[in-house]
């Protein structure tokens, strides 16, 4: 934090210092972005393999099947162990290595200091350390496929005793510890930056919604991750030193009497895991909500409706998200009386979420809506995230959850939240801030092709999961046709799979568009969207140190169409 934050007049750093071991929050943000997007593609590829098995169980995987070692896929047919490790790694990679680093690491790192008018993060070297820890953890996670015993195969939830008996889990635990440490360092950095580094005049109530979302997210990461870290340590002890924190006495595994001393409780892990994993859901959702709010305000050309309501709702979501974790455990054998407590808190947390969505929709009223590519993503977010939220209702209610728990209904619900919600918003954010990152625009036509293709395919993939869940089809089944009650909805699995391949095809224009526009895209000025927030008040891309001189903030973040002004936007830095 000493001299690093001020790069003016510094001599030109070497290539390595500038692009690889950089302490500049913008470079680190882009590093996070590239890495996280690659991990998203990896996680997606794992899912494409699984979808093949789900649609046509027992059929050899075309083209790639022969490439896998015979113990994973004999004769090109996926084995049960391989399916389970694909499932566990898909969840882990998507959540911990894909969406969170993209939403927080990439967008937060790049935009938070810019939006508050700071030259850099409070602790730039710590920031670099977070990225490298994250990359190390991610690569270790991926490498577990190549290790003896293979990758973890106990689901991303890693419920013991299965996770202690199964091979491959130790590497998972160690890489989780690295990823958690990275997140902790990152969130400390974000919070200190937001508390201490704001430009003069940038009071808390003048912060853009996106900054608030990042602050709440940081608090969630800071306080929710350590319990998982501790729980992971205990699981490492169970696996490596044969303690029995999670192992009860007298287990007989495949005919062998277990020799551990026993006395442990598997439900303890579930509590500690979900204490993290529920706030984690809001970590996945809040930053994208912030992105949507920014895009909507910018493209309706009017202030957000209920800025304070949105912010207060975000804070209350943050607080409540710590108190609802056991709604993932209604049927876990936990005390049924305790379930009632979590039922009530779960219903309470839906209130601020509905308030945010309502505010965002009311923001459209009276606007002059520009249907730009990022705006399409933000608008699609609203109803699709709405579906995700609404389908959470029968899952959050104890009684209906008895039947729907662990069925495809759950899968549909959280993929609507995370994919058509978070990922859609994050993609929209890419189109919105791309001019800031590279000084060039992305191609609009390709963007629209990507948008419509992705949205239709996403609905096609996840929509069929609701009827499947209602029919009672369980998740995590290697061969869904082995259970009679799944047979009638098996055609829906085929539909889902076909759309999943379609979704993959529609990502190709995006990838091409991204890299092509980076070098060849149409050049833009500093503020191509005529936006009001601080990140648009510095050059594109911003130099090291961001602002020529410390900006001074005069008003709130969304002063669009102020009466009596020539232009329809009034930047936060404009003196009058």
């Amino acid at each position, binding site marked *: 934090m000493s001299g690093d934050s001020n790069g003016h007049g510094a001599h030109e750093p070497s290539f390595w210092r500038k692009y690889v071991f950089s302490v500049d929050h913008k470079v680190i943000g882009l590093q996070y972005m590239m890495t996280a997007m690659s991990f998203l593609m990896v996680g997606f590829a794992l899912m494409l393999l699984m979808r093949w098995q789900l649609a046509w169980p027992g059929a050899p995987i075309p083209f790639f099947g022969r490439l896998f070692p015979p113990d994973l896929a004999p004769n090109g047919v996926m084995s*049960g162990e391989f399916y*389970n490790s694909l499932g566990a790694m898909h969840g882990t990679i998507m959540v911990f290595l894909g969406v969170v680093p993209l939403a927080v690491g990439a967008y937060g790192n790049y935009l938070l200091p810019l939006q508050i008018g700071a030259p850099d993060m409070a602790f730039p070297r710590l920031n670099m350390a977070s990225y490298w820890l994250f990359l190390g953890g991610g690569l270790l996670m991926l490498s577990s496929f190549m290790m003896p015993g293979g990758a973890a195969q106990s689901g991303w939830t890693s*419920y013991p*005793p299965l996770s202690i*008996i199964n091979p491959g889990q130790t590497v998972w635990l160690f890489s989780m510890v690295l990823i958690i440490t990275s997140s902790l360092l990152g969130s400390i950095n974000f919070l200190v930056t937001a508390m201490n580094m704001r430009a003069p005049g940038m009071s808390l109530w003048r912060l853009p919604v996106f900054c608030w979302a990042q602050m709440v997210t940081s608090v969630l990461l800071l306080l929710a991750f350590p319990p998982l870290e501790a729980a992971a340590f205990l699981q490492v002890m169970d696996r490596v030193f044969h303690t029995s924190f999670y192992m009860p006495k007298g*287990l*007989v*595994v*495949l*005919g*062998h009497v277990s020799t551990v001393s026993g006395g*442990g*409780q*598997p*439900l303890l892990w579930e509590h500690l895991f979900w204490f993290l994993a529920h706030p984690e859901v809001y970590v996945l959702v809040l930053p994208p909500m912030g992105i949507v709010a920014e895009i909507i305000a910018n493209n*309706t050309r*009017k*202030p957000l409706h*209920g800025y*304070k*309501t949105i912010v207060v709702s975000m804070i209350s979501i943050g607080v409540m998200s710590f108190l609802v974790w056991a709604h993932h455990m209604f*049927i*876990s*054998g936990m005390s*049924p009386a305790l379930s009632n407590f979590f039922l009530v808190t779960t*219903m309470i947390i839906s209130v601020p979420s*509905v*308030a945010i969505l*309502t505010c965002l929709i009311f923001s*459209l*009223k*009276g606007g*002059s*809506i*520009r*249907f730009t590519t990022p705006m399409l993503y933000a608008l699609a977010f*609203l109803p699709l995230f709405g579906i995700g939220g*609404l*389908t959470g*209702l029968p899952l959050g*209610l*104890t009684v*209906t959850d*008895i*039947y729907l728990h*662990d*069925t495809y209904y759950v899968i549909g619900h959280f993929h609507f939240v995370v994919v058509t919600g978070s990922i859609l918003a994050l993609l929209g954010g890419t189109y919105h801030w791309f001019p800031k990152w590279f000084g060039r625009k992305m191609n609009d036509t390709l963007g629209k092709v990507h948008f419509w293709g992705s949205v239709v395919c996403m609905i096609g993939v996840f929509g069929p999961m609701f*009827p499947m869940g209602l*029919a*009672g089809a369980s998740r*995590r089944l*290697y*061969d*869904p046709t*082995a*259970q*009679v*009650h799944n047979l009638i909805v098996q055609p829906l699995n085929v539909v889902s799979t076909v759309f999943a391949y379609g979704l993959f095809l529609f990502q190709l224009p995006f990838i091409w568009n991204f890299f092509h526009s980076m070098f060849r895209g149409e050049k833009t000025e500093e503020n191509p969207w005529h936006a009001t927030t601080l990140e648009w008040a510095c050059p594109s891309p911003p130099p090291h140190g961001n602002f020529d001189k410390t900006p001074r903030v005069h008003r709130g973040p969304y002063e*669009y169409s102020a009466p009596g002004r020539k232009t*329809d936007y009034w930047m936060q830095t404009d003196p009058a």
Partner: protein
Amino acid sequence: MNIYGWGLPVAASTYAQKIDFGIWLIHAAMIAIFVLWGIFFTYLLVKYRKRDGVPAVRDDHDETPAKISVPDSFSKFPFAQILYKHQGELKSLAPDLIVMLFEVGLIVFYAVPVWSRIKMQMPDKKDAVEIRVEAEQFGWNVRYPGPDGKFGRTKPELVHFSNPIGLDRTDPASADDVVVGNELRLPLGKPALIELTSKDVIHDFFVPEFRIKQDIVPGMEIPLWIQPTRVGHYELACAQLCGFGHSLMRGDVYVQSPADFSAWLKSRAAAAPAAPKPVKPSEDF
């Protein structure tokens, strides 16, 4: 009548209809909310699309409340002034209020009573068929106490492929215990009290037709009850990832008339081995 179809499977237990009621009610509400909301959303998108020469109009209530000027007619009522100034926020909370009332109703009149009925009020042992279900990778061991109504002792060391639950046949109570694999038989109309245990990892007892699902945690004995209302052949599936053979872990559930059920139980009890067998330690397995 087909057991399975689009939508929910057939309802075959006393509480199945209560659960179905909740599922359909919530879905009706969800669809209503979504449709109304979608219509409003589409209307806004069409009405306020960008048109040349039509600027965006700021709503007064987007301003901070302090800046909003209140009409004179409100001057006598300070509370009304506050409401007027905070109109913006209140408007955005209105849909919330409706959703909240709906949820409170659901909790108070539906979720809490039905939940405690299903999970917290077990039938008396006198009126019920007692069954123990022990799950393992990857199968179900179902045990009935036999004519003496008592479950015998089990020991983990005795587990053997011919004795999957490690029943100690030297215990007199266990002599007539009936153990069947992957098959659960229940009499129609009589509550069954099932104790769930697991030998190795977490499993889940799921019978879609009964609308019941309960994790089975090793180290715990979790009670569960079912009162079947329909004779038929259903499916018992594991619903919690339990290893590579998870999807193969299934069993058959037969709901029979009480007479058929006791006849079956008698025949099985008669077939149970009477004398204790020498059992090898499991390491040789």
